[in-house]
């Protein structure tokens, strides 16, 4: 592993969303890298069990500072970024509404970035985004999705508040990069999985109608095991010369949605699932979309062609840039990663 870093291990690092699914792993990785001053931004009402476990595992009570605050408060953000050399911004809005997602993804990010303006000590702002920002509508079947692919240009039609929030967040981060010289790096993780996340991704299928419907089954999932993803995030903050870059995060070995569901059923529980071909899903999405429009939203356009392409089209993924520029490689292979993910359902 290349040890070249832009900060010393004694410099202060801020992690927002530090008690979340990925955030605790980021803190874990930072402790493993030997950082001795990690400030974890947490809400006063947050459950901190995961963070405590990490802190205890490294006996790092003095190293890990719990900073209670609200990212929607500019004052809290000012206090939180004080003296920090790197900010890992993982907190995100998972609200079901567009306004809620926007508020919790964009206003929070704006507050955090505003707090950094004029602070010479900040060396890197790592913004964790998502694959949800990509549009797969124009990508050919079996084509490769990489960092140069087009972003979603009509999030309203996609009806994905989370993706909308992430798109706008990225736009704002890039704007601050241009206006204020914010030294940002953007990471776009694919489907992050691992112990601590029990829900099946919508890319595997949907259970909305009582029966689990799997589209295609041959679509590759852009999987990244949570520890591998956290490693990529940490490296994005440490590597020199990557300011203004965007990195997709997917593991080397991937499964199709059919393979993933099959493993899940074998290990967790058996249930009825129906597989439909991609073209049928596309047609149904088109019909749903049209009905939603003509009925003025009697059924909201939750199923639409943009979502269909983004989640179920057979496309391939690459992590070449991540490997080449950040020197990242997955620490955990697919098999142990799957075992670790599935064990959470069987271990008591």
């Amino acid at each position, binding site marked *: 592993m290349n040890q070249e870093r832009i900060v010393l291990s004694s410099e202060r690092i801020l992690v927002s969303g530090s008690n979340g699914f990925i955030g605790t792993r980021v803190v874990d990785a930072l402790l493993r890298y030997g950082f001795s001053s990690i400030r974890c931004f947490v*809400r*006063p*009402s*947050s459950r901190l069990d995961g963070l405590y476990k990490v802190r205890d595992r490294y006996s790092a009570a003095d190293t890990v500072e719990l900073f209670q605050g*609200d990212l*929607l*408060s500019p004052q809290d953000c000012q206090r939180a970024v004080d003296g920090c050399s790197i900010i890992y911004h993982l907190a995100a809005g*998972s*609200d*079901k*509404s*567009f*306004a*809620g997602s*926007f*508020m*919790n993804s*964009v*206003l929070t990010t*704006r507050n955090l970035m505003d707090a950094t303006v004029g602070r010479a000590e900040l060396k890197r702002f790592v913004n964790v985004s998502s694959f949800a920002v990509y549009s797969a509508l124009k990508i050919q079947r079996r084509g490769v999705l990489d960092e140069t692919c087009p972003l979603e240009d009509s999030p*309203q039609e996609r009806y994905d508040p989370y993706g909308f929030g992430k798109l*706008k967040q990225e736009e704002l981060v890039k704007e601050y990069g241009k206006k204020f010289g914010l030294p940002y790096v953007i990471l776009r993780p694919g489907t992050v999985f691992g112990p601590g996340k029990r829900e099946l991704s919508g890319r595997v299928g949907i259970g909305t109608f009582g029966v689990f419907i799997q589209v295609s089954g041959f679509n590759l999932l852009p999987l990244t095991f949570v520890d591998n993803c956290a490693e990529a995030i940490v490296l994005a903050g440490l590597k020199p010369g990557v300011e203004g870059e965007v990195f997709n995060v997917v593991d080397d070995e991937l499964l199709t949605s059919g393979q993933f569901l099959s493993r899940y059923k074998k290990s967790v529980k058996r249930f009825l699932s129906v597989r439909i071909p991609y073209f049928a899903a596309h047609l149904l999405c088109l019909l749903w979309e049209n009905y939603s429009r*003509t*009925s*003025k*939203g*009697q059924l909201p356009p939750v199923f639409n062609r943009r979502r269909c392409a983004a989640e179920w089209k057979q496309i391939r993924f690459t992590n070449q840039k991540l490997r080449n520029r950040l020197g990242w490689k997955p620490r955990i292979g697919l098999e142990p990663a799957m075992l670790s993910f599935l064990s959470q359902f069987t271990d008591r």
Partner: protein
Amino acid sequence: MSHSDLRVAIAGCGKIADQHVQAIDRIPGCRIVALCDRELLMAKQLGERCGVSQCFSDVVEMLAAVSPDVVHITTPPQAHFSLASLCLESGSHVYLEKPFTVTATEADRLIQIAEKRDLRLTAGHNCQFTREAIEMRRLVKQGFLGGKPVHLESHFSYDLSDKSYVGPLLGNRSHWVRRLPGKLLHNLISHGIAKLAEFLDDEIAEIFVFADQSPELERLNGEDVLDELRVLIRDGSGTTAFFFFSTQVKPRLNRLRICGPLNSLVLDQNSSSLIRNVSRNYKSYLTFFIPPLQSARENMRNAGVNLRNFVRRRLYQDYGMTELISRFYSSIRDSQAPPIPYREILLTAKIMDEIFGQIYDGDCPKLKPEPVPA
């Protein structure tokens, strides 16, 4: 768009504003001309999604630049009174989201300003304008109950598992919900109380309040926030009403029962149904067979109505809001009385004032039994 279109502005571009945009979009003869939010970014994100280019961060500036016919105020309630006053003073009609104001005094003053300036004002009590609620009102007016209601029951529940709402307010002691006199309850009970106010006299003789914190909220470290409420009300003419609010019960409740001297009605707004309970006497064992079958027939009738409305594309979730806004706009165009009588808005505010006064200023009993001293 014709020149007579009502020009609408929205102040406050949070979650509920999206529903307003969708509802306004369904109503002919109106268009949204401006959006305003203290956070300009919030106004712009909504503007981008609904095609409105005039976005502001200051209501005064917006009123001066746009002079809207109507302003929908969808901000936290603490700003309702000052914003509505500004809008009314500048000549705009006002639709205020619930809770209408923080106190009944503020509600009274707003109504006075509106009446003085011959402008219309309404509260976002949209649950009273769903199809089934309108049908219930029609039946009551026709005398289905057989006289004045003897007793009313309003049941309302909220699911705390929606962490996107509860998380921020518990995580921040200065969250706007926690700064309301009735805190969480203040933001959630308006619909349930307004449904009772419609059928109660202006003069409230007695109100008894029980309030507490649910075990789940206790686990989430809810501190001084209460989420369990029971209220018993008696009006001047002797009609009694019971209000039940809980975050513990499943399935979800959003129900009103009206008992009259002859028949009764049950309005279930979760399933969009109205059950008519007609009083009949049956001989002997028929009492055990006929009434359940009649209930089944009533439920089937409601399912049929809903199916018919779905096929006709009229079973959308914000029907009540669309209907209320549409009636409000009609009252503006035709210079008629607004859809919700001011009496009901004021009575709702007064009952809420009394409830929160008893909970937070008085010494209202809790639901959990007090521990016996050792």
